[in-house]
């Protein structure tokens, strides 16, 4: 996939072709009016220098095919598919990891070194590369990294596993399927009117009566403020 296509995929994999905004404001000339559609464009508001940097990164490949295959295996063990949501590879996590190690080069040596370490373990115990051994044998190596004995916590395998787990988790939960699974509700125009009453009640909280008298009222929030009878 070339850079343009992959960018497009990122965008289309996102919100679809447009954002519908339900906020209404006082004047038609304002940029957001009820029913307005903001056309989604390729890109995400980059400056020319930033766009060029992205293009440079997209034009390079860091991980080999074999390395990407190992990353995909690990990613789907860390975040598997289950009845509630899709797997890490389905959510595009390996592609995110390929990009982020080019974007933040500090990740490169730990990632590459960790993948080398895994293959060494695999060769030592099963006489084949990690990608070629059985699922059962793969899990044996992973369990040793994921649940190390106390004295091994800071040895290469466990350290690598924690690093790649961070990238997989963050990649997953910043993807669209990850948001769906997390049940994230924000990033959309709305009218904030406080914590829902049933939640407040559950937490034994309530809003101060005096405060409620002056708090923002959704009914008048679009009326231009009139200072005539306001006293400081």
């Amino acid at each position, binding site marked *: 996939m070339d850079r343009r296509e992959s960018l497009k995929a990122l965008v289309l994999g996102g919100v679809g072709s447009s954002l519908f905004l339900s906020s209404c404001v006082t004047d038609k000339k304002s940029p*957001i009016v009820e029913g307005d559609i*903001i*056309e989604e464009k390729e890109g995400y508001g980059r400056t020319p220098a*930033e766009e060029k940097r992205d293009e440079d990164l997209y034009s390079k490949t860091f991980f080999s095919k074999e390395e990407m295959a190992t990353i995909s295996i690990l990613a789907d063990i860390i*975040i598997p598919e289950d009845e509630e949501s899709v797997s890490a590879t389905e959510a595009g996590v390996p592609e995110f990891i390929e990009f982020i190690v080019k974007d933040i080069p500090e990740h490169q040596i730990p990632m590459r070194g960790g993948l080398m370490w895994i293959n060494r373990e695999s060769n030592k115990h099963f006489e084949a590369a990690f990608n070629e051994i059985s699922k059962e044998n793969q899990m044996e190596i992973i369990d040793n990294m994921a649940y190390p004995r106390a004295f091994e916590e800071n040895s290469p395998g466990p350290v690598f596993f924690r690093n790649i787990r961070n990238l997989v988790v963050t990649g*997953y939960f910043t993807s669209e399927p990850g948001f769906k699974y997390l049940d994230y509700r924000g990033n959309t125009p709305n009218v904030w009117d406080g914590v829902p009453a049933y939640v407040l009640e559950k*937490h034994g909280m309530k809003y101060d009566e005096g405060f409620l008298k002056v708090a*923002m009222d959704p009914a008048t929030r679009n009326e231009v*403020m009139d200072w005539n009878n306001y006293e400081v």
Partner: protein
Amino acid sequence: MSFQIKKQSTKYDVCIVGSGAGGGMAAKLLADAGFKIALLEAGPDFDPANKEQRTQLRWPWESPRRGAATTRPFGDFDMAYGGWELEGEPYTQNGNTEFAWFRSRMLGGRTNHWGRISLRFGPLDFKRKDFDGKGDNWPIGYEDVKPYYDKVDKLIGVFGTKENLPNEPDGFFLPPPKPRLHELYIKKGANQAGVPMIPSRLSILTRPVNKERGACFFCNQCSRSCMAYADFSSSSVLVKPAVKTGNVDLYVNAMVREVLTNGEGEATGVSYIDKDDLRDYEIKAKVVILAASACSSARILLNSKSAQHPNGLANSSGVVGKYLHDSTGSSRMGFIPQLVDRERYNEDGVGGMHLYTPWWLNDSKDLGFTRGYHIEYWGGMSMPAYGFGFNTQALKEITGDTSRNAYGTGLKKDVKKFYGATFGMAGRGESIPRKENYCEIDSNTVDKYGIPVLKFNYTWSDEEVKQARHMQDTFEEVMHNMGAVPLGDKPGKETNYGLENPGKIIHEVGTTRMGKDSKNSVVNEFNQAHDVPNLFVMDGGPFVSQADKNPTWTILALAWRATDYLTEQLKKGNV
């Protein structure tokens, strides 16, 4: 390539350098009054509603790095073109100084991403020396600035509540948004610890103030600059209407080198480099206003050397660049066990906290330090970005759950369960301005435009360190009282109690301070240079001290006051 300097034939009434809060305010008022203005901005044009530039309402996966802070220091979607380091525009440090200088090069400057915390200085804040004997008093008091704070409130809009607190003056407030759940938890703990928490005061339109700007639609993203213009950004709120009058010529990508002067020592205009063709240009004007940011304006003045002004322009006192000071900052994160596995709803709210803590110990004499701080809070079900989910196991262990889900569905569930249960507190305090903290020209270093750069000299004193220690003690006490668990180790003496390096809070001011005496100040109480009557400085440079309040609202009020004075002088033919 020809290096002939291009001269503009137009002579403007006023040339304004910088389009942030101060420059925007001056441009708006002067354009409304009918003066011909040249407004210079070192960065590109910007409009948050421009779809090529917009980051508001974008999702993390629209960024291939998921919003990581690789190219923009506050993440991909933050609306500041620039940061602590700019390519080809270095600054240097003296000795053990670790000053961080944040520059945002775009129309509206740093007002596109700022925290919108819009606090008035109180009566005490202008006269601190009278109470603790340290630093200096301002030549003006609250009563001089109050009418302008009132006007700024009404023109731009700020929400808040009338609290009648000493030294935290009330204003013309739009209705405040209701607090979020974590804020109610913090308030409970804070009040038990004797720490007040009141609705915050942010320049975000919970109701419109005119028909040109929309009302807030609660996306929590003011740092991305609002496409409905429902937050205060100088570009959207001041520069845009100023340009609309037809009286403003906007010069973008115009990097000012120096202020030009004539044989009589008056300013005649500015010299700038057009960043697109890399040529030098000159703009002539009757009056020059510098509003390029405290350090940039000081740099321009110090680089404007002539026979009449051998130490730089407006610097007969030698204090240009001196008394540089930033807010103090120290912070701590915490975890609220009661918020584990919480109910989901859209908790975005406005772009910032809904409650904050104003300084509450003005009457205490035994703290070991004499200037105050306020506390800002964050937390809740905010939008995940790069870094999300890194430390789930640590949170789990705090709750006493020693089971481990190193991978698999269990790990996935853990991340979901602990989402929205962390929060943070950040103290922002007043430091004491000192002559020894300053920026100067580093004559050995130039930027890529050939302009000599700034060198910083800055250390914190014991006052600021003790203040940071007090912040950390307060954070722990509040967390303890609210049933929260502080995360990480408490920053101790070895880290100056978490005190951030100067410049990190991005409130640097004081480099062209105002005063009655031209021997120890740069401008008078109307931001007019003592030495050069047709030169004004309207950014944070003229601050004598900056309280624990964020400087923007005071920059705006003082710029309005100074512009009123300038308008009168122009009409009388005095400048």
